[in-house]
């Protein structure tokens, strides 16, 4: 209950972290997507061969 009662404090503090989390998430997602595309391109090339 204490955690909920003090949500006003810690939620606002967490909000400072949001831009960094969003940016790092976007970077990791971009890397993952690029790798998946590279893998699927390599698979297509193998099939054609």
């Amino acid at each position: 209950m204490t955690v909920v009662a003090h949500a006003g404090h810690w939620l606002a503090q967490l909000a400072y972290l949001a831009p960094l989390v969003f940016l790092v998430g976007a970077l990791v997602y971009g890397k993952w997507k690029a790798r998946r595309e590279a893998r699927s391109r390599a698979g297509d090339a193998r099939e054609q061969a």
Partner: protein
Amino acid sequence: MTRRLAAALALVLGCLLWVPSTALAHGLVGKQDLPIPRWLFAWAAATVLVISFLALAVLWPAPLLERRRESKLLSLPSLLDPLCGSLGVATFATAVYAGLAGNQSASENLLPTLVFVLFWVAIPCVSFVFGDISRPFNPWRAVGRLGGWLAARVARGTLPKPLEYPRRVGYWPAAAGIFAFVWVELVYSGRTDPRSLAVLALVYAVVQWVGMSVYGVDAWCRRADAFGVYFGLFARLSPLRWARRALFLRPPVAGAAQLAAVPGTVALVCVAIGTTSFDGFSLNDVWNSIAETSTDAFRDLGLSPGNALELTFTLGLIAMVGLIFAFYRLGIAGMRTVDPSRSARALAGAFAHSLIPIALAYVIAHYFGLLAYQGQAIGFLVSDPLGDGSDLFGTADRAIDYGWISASAIWYVQVVTLVVGHAIGLALAHDRALVLYGNSRESVRSQYWMLAVMVGFTCLALWLLSSQA
């Protein structure tokens, strides 16, 4: 799916906008009159940095800062250097005498305010605008040069040459010196005792003179004099460069790109940012809770309350510097994914100069309030440096005017400083990446992670500042 995501985001935003009113109900109202919650400033700052990053990627396709471009502005008389040095020595001697012989109240003696406000906060700001003007006024350098000149006269050419300053030592003594100074400022229990400060100032001076006599005045001042190196870092952002006989004009911030990545460079900038961050964090509720638990644990181990508190703060200071270093190295590790053939250590050194404007932004943002209010105390303390009731310049009766700038105005200065400092850091890193990676596409890709580092540092600084407000 997208609509559901947008609705969820709107709900979270709505909740967060409601949250600060709950927080403000806990007694923070009245200090700052801001139109939006403070955390929204962090989001706005992050947005500005992302836009700056995109603008750099599009509008800055070739390196501009790496090549030294400067023009001579004017010649300086040869007497200027010894004159400034004499003034620096006189100020140092007066301050130390005031600390040793004056009133031992920190608010009435000149020394604590001179050291912690004028010396530690005002000089970095002045160096950023006017260049490295602290160098000619450096009292240790002036005495070292005078000593060297006298020794050469007496020895009549038989004086041995100074040893070569070890390259592997680099900026490490300067980083250790800055860490030690901040330890005194934030941790040491006798930090407000003028006599202790005066003794520490004399100890520092003796260390400098020993170093200068072994390695030579210029080599020591360039790498190991903690304050000379620290102020010199910020002076690299200035459009003015002072040489012994001339003043040069260069593009603003271009001097930072000339920073040699010698050993200890990353440590120095991380200590500069980390120690300032800890100064803010030590006023935070989170730290108070950690410190209480830690101090109790050390007391249980048999330490006195004072020693337990000092040990807790020392560990906190080290942890914060380590955290800043780790965060920077994470950004560097991300940068390595673009070209794994480059070593992390080489990349960390190559981009260390981009942290200089961030370190300065941290200093200005964290200490602007102190400078704006406590800085005024110098006006009346110079008239009564010993705190014994004298009135040398007729200003001893003056008082600090707390009304000249509002808390909200201070907050806006802090936010703008942080955003501009980090944007300059991005520009410096982008310019260096263009040199290292050769083409615009690769360099922009490498800087995605640097953008994350800059956004992280901005949000950290705003969080630290907002938790003090």
